[in-house]
């Protein structure tokens, strides 16, 4: 074991510039992978909040509705009639009714808590509308159901989610694929760099390796310094990437975006941990996979 560890520090120093290159490439590629995962979580969270892109909502009248289409709150007969129209429409895949209470609870997560506090809070469940959330079979065929529901008694209006949400979701998707796309190139670069480093290290140690094979050192024993070297660089890469992601969570999402764009449900630290877990698995895999393959090739008994 003494030999393994003295070789490890020696190997790391001998190939310092190569190892730094591996660490930096791993750092940037893992950060991008982590960022891609975070953006994915973000767009999932947003989609969950707003319904997915295919949904449109029919807002139903409430008490004292300021909307001129409403004459008081929707009554059960009107509601039944509306549901019947929705149910029988061929463009509708599915629908569900969201109560005022649910709308109120969703809003609580988004808006300033002060609006919900005190004896006479600004917002109460009665300030929200019931709504019917309609999922379309084909997102491009919505005129039929919109015109069928629009103007029914008890309907305040139709909100087509896609108009507001789609651009946000689309830009998140672009960000997600851009970061993952660049990450893939960098991961390939990292794999090749690791492979080159191993090649150099195996060449530098070729005499020792030849003698070790000859006197009967086990393959694991011969490969161990290489694997440990790869593991050390991987761990440093993961720590750096984890730090960079944590910093962007803290200074970007928590400190700025949350205040600046409060109506979006922003990702939290549990999402960070999720992306960190992926990065922490991926890093060692990127470093160890080529090492295992190449040590098998160069140190074959």
């Amino acid at each position: 074991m003494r030999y393994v560890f003295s070789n490890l520090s020696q190997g790391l120093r001998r190939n310092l510039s190569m190892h730094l290159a591996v660490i930096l490439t791993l750092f940037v590629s893992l950060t991008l992978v982590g960022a891609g995962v975070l953006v994915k979580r973000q767009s999932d969270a947003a989609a969950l909040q707003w319904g997915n892109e295919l949904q449109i909502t029919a807002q139903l009248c409430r008490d004292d509705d300021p909307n001129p289409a409403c004459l008081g709150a929707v009554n059960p007969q009107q509601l039944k009639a509306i549901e019947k129209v929705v149910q029988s429409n061929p463009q509708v895949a599915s629908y569900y009714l969201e109560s005022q209470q649910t709308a109120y609870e969703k809003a609580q997560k988004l808006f300033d808590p002060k609006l919900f506090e005190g004896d006479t809070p600004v917002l109460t469940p009665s300030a929200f509308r019931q709504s019917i959330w309609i999922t379309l079979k084909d997102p491009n065929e919505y005129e039929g159901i919109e015109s069928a529901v629009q103007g029914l008694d008890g309907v305040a209006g139709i909100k087509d989610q896609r108009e507001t949400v789609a651009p946000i979701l689309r830009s998140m998707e672009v960000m997600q694929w851009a970061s993952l796309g660049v990450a893939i190139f960098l991961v390939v670069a990292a794999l090749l760099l690791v492979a080159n480093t191993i090649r150099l290290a195996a060449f530098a140690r070729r005499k020792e390796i030849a003698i070790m094979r000859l006197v009967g050192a086990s393959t694991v024993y011969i490969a161990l310094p290489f694997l440990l070297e790869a593991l050390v660089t991987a761990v440093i890469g993961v720590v750096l990437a984890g730090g960079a992601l944590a910093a962007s969570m803290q200074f970007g999402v928590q400190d700025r975006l949350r205040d600046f764009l409060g109506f979006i449900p922003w990702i939290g630290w549990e999402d960070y941990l999720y992306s960190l877990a992926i990065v922490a698995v991926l890093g060692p895999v990127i470093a160890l996979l080529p090492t295992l393959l190449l040590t098998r090739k160069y140190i074959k008994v």
Partner: protein
Amino acid sequence: MIRFEKVTKTYPGTSQPALDQVSVDVEKGEFVFLVGTSGSGKSTALRLVLRETRPTAGRVYVAGKEINRLAGWKVPRLRRQIGTVFQDFRLLQTKTVAENVAFAMEVTGHSPKEIRRTVPATLELVGLSDKGDRMPDELSGGEQQRVAIARAFVNRPMILIADEPTGNLDPATSVDIMKLLDRINATGTTVVMATHDHGIVDQMRKRVIELDTGRVVRDEARGVYGFQH
């Protein structure tokens, strides 16, 4: 100890086999010279014993085990039972004499205590007990070969394979090396030595196996090198 049964080895891309239907049996404790011109198949035979390569046909047994059937992970265990010495010594120039010998024990998992006990004794056996702290390049060729023999013998192998061990040495030094190999053989270790050196073979009067283009053309119990070229 070593048995070849109709062993044929043809390297990829060649039509002429390096070894052709070779059958040989070497008993435990024997001292065997393997002679023949370059390309006669000596090195191939040694490589087969070490499982550096596998036969195309036939079987190779070492210590009763058919080694071409050996799983890859068991090969190191086979090689721990075989010490190997080469013409070019193959010492690590960055390590002292004692470290070079200790290296063979370290990498095969011996404890520091065992190493401290065994290395000086082995250096004494090869006559280098006062040179353990020297670097290899401070030694003569004969002394370097002694270090290589110490390294090959330090794990007390059953077999010692020597591939032209005197090839780079002057005749007087060669005789010393042969005495050393003879002493190691006397401890019960089987020694197989490939060589071109007529003088040594004639002097030692040991078993001689001669190879010619991959075939055994002579196998004598107390032989000489053969035809004077």
